[in-house]
């Protein structure tokens, strides 16, 4: 009976999404999808930048400085969203023992860390002329810094541990525990946003009209870019881990 069930599966070419849970199939699909994600990111990002720099009216008060919001706010969203996605993939990898899900999590980490850095960098450039300092000890930048450390911890774990499966399991626990940063960041902004300079309350004090549209476009561009970069990296990870497995298999064959 189990044999016939397997045969029936093999006869059907389309098995839905589980078809792509095998790294080899996924590798090929990802290779086809990457150029389209890059194209979308370039087009949407170009439109977003045009809106941000030419069309959007300069905000009240700091005027042209508010244009930074259209890079800063999407970078903050991307850093948070990629972290949630990383934790989700890592959790699926841990719970379902899915190799591919764990590989997707490690493929997302460097991109997430980069967007967190961009969020800190643009936030700092926004703070200097408004608050007079490159860095202030406020909940928003501090949580963003903690998020960067979480990303770096995850990456360091995978560099330090020789066994990638072991690193996946420990990393998944780290990522799931680190999820606490997301509500923390949200509530920190809710509670402290009112009396702070503009960058701290970026999510609440977002510009409207064309400026908001520009920010949404930039967020979409970052989102499609993240997919392209993560798929490129997951292809590298599949090849690297496959190479290690081949090597282990050959070494084992020699010994027996």
């Amino acid at each position, binding site marked *: 009976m189990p044999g016939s069930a397997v045969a029936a599966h093999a006869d059907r070419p389309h098995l839905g999404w589980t078809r792509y849970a095998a790294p080899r199939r996924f*590798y*090929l699909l990802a*290779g086809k999808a990457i150029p389209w994600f890059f194209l979308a990111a370039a087009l949407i990002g170009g439109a977003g*930048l045009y809106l*941000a*720099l*030419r069309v959007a009216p*300069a905000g009240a008060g*700091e*005027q*042209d*400085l508010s*244009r*930074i919001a259209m*890079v*800063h706010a999407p*970078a903050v969203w991307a850093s948070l969203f990629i972290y949630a996605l990383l934790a989700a993939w890592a959790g699926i990898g841990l719970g379902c023992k899915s190799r591919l899900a764990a590989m997707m999590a490690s493929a997302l980490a*460097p*991109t997430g860390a*980069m967007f967190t*850095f*961009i969020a800190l*960098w*643009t936030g700092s*450039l*926004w703070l*200097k*002329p408004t608050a007079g300092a490159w860095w202030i000890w406020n909940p928003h930048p501090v949580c963003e810094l903690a998020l960067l450390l979480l990303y770096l911890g995850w990456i360091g774990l995978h560099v330090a541990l020789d066994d990638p499966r072991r690193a996946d399991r420990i990393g998944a626990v780290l990522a799931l525990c680190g999820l606490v940063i997301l509500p923390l960041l949200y509530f920190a902004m809710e509670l402290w946003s009112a009396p702070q300079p503009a960058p701290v309350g970026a999510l609440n004090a977002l510009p409207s009209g064309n400026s908001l549209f520009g920010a949404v476009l930039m967020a979409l561009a970052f989102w499609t*870019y993240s997919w392209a*970069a993560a798929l*490129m*990296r997951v*292809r*590298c990870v599949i*090849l*690297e881990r496959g*190479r290690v497995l081949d090597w282990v298999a050959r070494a084992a064959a020699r010994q027996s």
Partner: protein
Amino acid sequence: MIGSDWGAFIGLGGYGLYVWGAILVTIGALVAEIVLLVLRRRNILDHLGGSRRRLKREA
């Protein structure tokens, strides 16, 4: 007229350094990540050696 328009565009009311610093570093970081990924992939394929052509054909 065009010159002053461009000057205003670059200067952004005195905040040009901050705004352009934010945008150019963002674009630079994205491009650098892609360059690193391309180099990493090339490195892996070089190490895989013989199977490189097969992988390229599949990709």
